[in-house]
């Protein structure tokens, strides 16, 4: 904050949160939000590698390079299920909020920690427990339902591993709720003096909106998953038509959580992008209020659109039409954000370090993801595209192209603050080129496959789909290589990176006003805020 009067002195250069207490035990019992954030980082990164392994397996199988199929149908379906469940529940949902959010939110607010540090640590262990329970289904009793667990397939026709997987997701849900609760209270109660609600950074607005979704929607998922368990073990007959239940009811429950969950994945990413665009354009964000309120608007509307996953489920035509029109409304706040980010670059002074490249990559991919979402929101069009590769391409553009690009950009952006060292800019750029290129090579052909009619979750397909599938597979290797380079860049940065200054990017938000890495309680002296968060004058 250039015009802000911030009375922060640098901590003793040799004393920071990383060396405040040493040994593994000091990490495992830490109440410091920054350390907890890093523990999430390590966990999520590991899970991401496992989920990525399944993804590469799926793609390699679908390329049909050999005469023999690489996987048998059951194994393929299990790969598909674990890829989806791990990536959604264990990587993309917790990725930005639990890792970057945990690290950044209190510092950006000028707080010493989150409101409930013990609860924060508990959230982490609940997440670990949930992930462990879910992962045990990989060992004991594998699941082939797909990550959506549609009934009656999940309750009547497949192994009991489903119970482990949904119990794991159920448990991780608590972690998500508690983190959300913590962020909301922290945002309301622990802002530095002078930091009014219209002076909080946009990352915070995004995390705040996300937290609202987390605490309102996640309980619905919890109940739904418990009902699956009850249905499977006790045969209560809520979803089983033979007992008078309704299998489509499950879809309503499931999407009532899982559609808002899409915004749990993308809103924090939008927060990261807002930070990156303004920092690397060296210019005040354009339309602060519009961006902030559009986050809240997206969060609100996200609860009213779940039925657009069900246009051909047997739900009534009128319901389909109502869900279609409400879904179209989501396009507006999304467009507002894109226009505001682009306007921020107008008459700025833009630089292109690796984090900015990821932000620009986000804009490119998310725009394609968003526009193709309009195809799917339109009922007459969706009937053809529903459950085809068009949908697969669309949501990968949004979730992977959106969230993972933002996550990578965010890691590289806040890396100097986390570790007091810089990552290699060249490493970051190479990683970006590979991921960005690979991503388009992998997923753009899938739009075409979908238009041609290839359904998703297919072990085998018609010969006319072969070429595009092979191109897609080659693209997936580029993505894999790109993340590998990214990982090496990060590890290299942690141990061998150049020493970072306190504010290497010349950004304005509070986290850059303390030392890199910050001291145990973030600031030596509590900062006082006198202006908005992006005052580049």
């Amino acid at each position: 904050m250039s015009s802000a009067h911030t009375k922060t002195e640098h901590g003793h250069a040799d004393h920071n949160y990383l060396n405040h207490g040493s040994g593994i035990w000091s990490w495992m019992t830490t109440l410091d939000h920054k350390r907890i954030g890093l523990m999430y980082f390590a966990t999520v990164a590991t899970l991401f590698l496992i989920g990525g392994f399944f993804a590469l397996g799926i793609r390699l199988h679908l390329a049909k390079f050999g005469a023999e199929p690489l996987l048998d149908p059951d194994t393929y379906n299990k790969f598909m299920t674990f890829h989806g469940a791990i990536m959604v529940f264990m990587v993309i949902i917790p990725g930005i909020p639990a890792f970057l959010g945990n690290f950044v939110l209190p510092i950006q607010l000028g707080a010493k920690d989150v409101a409930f540090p013990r609860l924060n640590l508990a959230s982490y262990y609940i997440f670990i427990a949930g992930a462990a329970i879910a992962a045990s289904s990989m060992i004991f009793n594998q699941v082939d339902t797909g990550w959506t667990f549609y009934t009656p397939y999940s309750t009547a026709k497949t192994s009991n591993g489903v119970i482990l997987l949904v119990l794991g997701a159920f448990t991780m849900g608590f972690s998500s709720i508690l983190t959300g609760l913590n962020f909301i209270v922290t945002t309301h109660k622990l802002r530095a003096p002078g930091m009014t609600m219209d002076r909080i950074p946009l990352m915070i607005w995004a995390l705040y909106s996300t937290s609202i979704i987390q605490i309102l929607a996640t309980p619905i998922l919890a109940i739904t998953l418990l009902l699956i368990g009850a249905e499977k073990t006790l045969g209560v007959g809520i979803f089983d038509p033979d007992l008078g239940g309704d299998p489509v009811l499950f879809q309503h429950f499931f999407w009532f959580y899982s559609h808002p969950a899409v915004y749990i994945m993308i809103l924090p990413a939008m927060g990261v992008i807002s930070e990156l665009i303004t920092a690397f354009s060296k210019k005040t964000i354009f339309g602060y209020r519009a961006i902030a309120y559009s986050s809240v608007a997206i969060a609100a509307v996200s609860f009213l659109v779940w039925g657009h996953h069900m246009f051909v489920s047997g739900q009534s035509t009128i319901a389909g039409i109502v869900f279609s029109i409400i879904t179209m409304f989501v396009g507006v706040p999304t467009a507002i954000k894109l226009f505001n980010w682009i306007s921020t670059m107008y008459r700025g002074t833009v630089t292109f370090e690796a984090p900015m490249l990821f932000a620009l990559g986000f804009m490119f991919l998310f725009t394609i993801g968003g526009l193709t979402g309009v195809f799917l929101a339109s009922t007459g069009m969706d009937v053809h595209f529903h459950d085809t590769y068009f949908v697969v391409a669309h949501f990968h553009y949004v979730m992977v192209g959106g969230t993972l690009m933002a996550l990578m950009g965010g890691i590289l952006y806040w890396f100097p603050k986390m570790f007091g060292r810089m990552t290699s800019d060249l490493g970051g750029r190479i990683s970006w080129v590979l991921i960005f290129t690979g991503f388009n090579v992998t997923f753009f052909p899938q739009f075409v496959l979908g238009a041609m009619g290839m359904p998703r979750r297919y072990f085998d397909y018609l010969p006319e789909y072969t070429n595009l599938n092979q191109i897609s597979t080659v693209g997936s290797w580029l993505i894999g290589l790109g993340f590998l380079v990214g990982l090496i860049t990060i590890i290299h940065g942690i141990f061998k990176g150049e020493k970072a200054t306190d504010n290497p990017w010349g950004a304005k938000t509070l986290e850059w006003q303390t030392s890199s890495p910050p001291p145990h309680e973030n600031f030596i002296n509590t900062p006082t805020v006198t202006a908005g968060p992006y005052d580049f004058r």
Partner: protein
Amino acid sequence: MSWSSLIPATSFMPIQATEIAKEVDLLYAFLIIASLVSFVILIGGMTWFLIKFKRTSLDQKSAYITHNNFAEFLWSFIPLVIMMGIFYWGMVIFEKLRTPPEDVAAEIHVTAEQWAWTYRYANGKEFYSSANDPMIIPAGKATKLILTSKDVIHSFYVPAFRTKQDAVPGKLTQLWFEPKQPGEYIVFCTEYCGTKHSGMMIKIKAIPSEEYAAWYHAEKKGADTPADLGKTLFAQKACASCHSIDGSRVVGPTMKGLFGSERKFTDGTKTKADENYLRESILVSSAKIVETYPAAMPLFQGQLSDEDVANLIEYIKSIK
């Protein structure tokens, strides 16, 4: 040839075997153009700014611009109008896809199971898809499918017709199409249903409608038509003691002309008597009580198989 054929992306779509497929593709072509224009405005604009406002020296200053109400209003309002247009266009097509015409030339009961489809014609002809029999339908005339499933949810997807519908256990859903030309069209299952999900493929074979009529009547019918079986069941279950078939009023509503008529219920709601309504009224009669009638009918849930219900419905449909 229309303007939409100028859009290369439409060439990836499967053949347009129905009129509706053409309409869907027109919307698709429009969406492609609208998306390209939006993409160029957004990403092109961004790229232009990136080049123009690239930082060239360390002491360069950015402009200080915080917002612009007029611009922000425009880029909220214009997308909203476009979205509403797309919504409306999609809705018009959706309603056509979802509303079968009054008279259909063929009506086929389709039952899905892991991993096959069974189709049963009104005269009792029945085919099991794993025997590789295509579903024979008349070209140039409307066919209506009444779908259900024996086990898990499946979905009946005909890319060439741009239409699909889930087959849900415990429920009847419907789908209709009218292929213009004779030909063979692929049907995929698009709701994940287990190990052989991708192998659950059948073909629809549309033949000229005279040929269809000959085929339909030629071979020996099944022993009894579904309607015949339903008639027997109607007698066995003593339905006639409460429901007349000649239009007279007994305890419950008459069956005469019931199918397709509008029903008004005691709670003030209304519905058209379609297959799903009949199914619900047979199994759980208390769900909807027709005005001026008592809630007297026993529940048949658990006592009748899906096939029994389908037969009864066919019988009721035949009482005109």
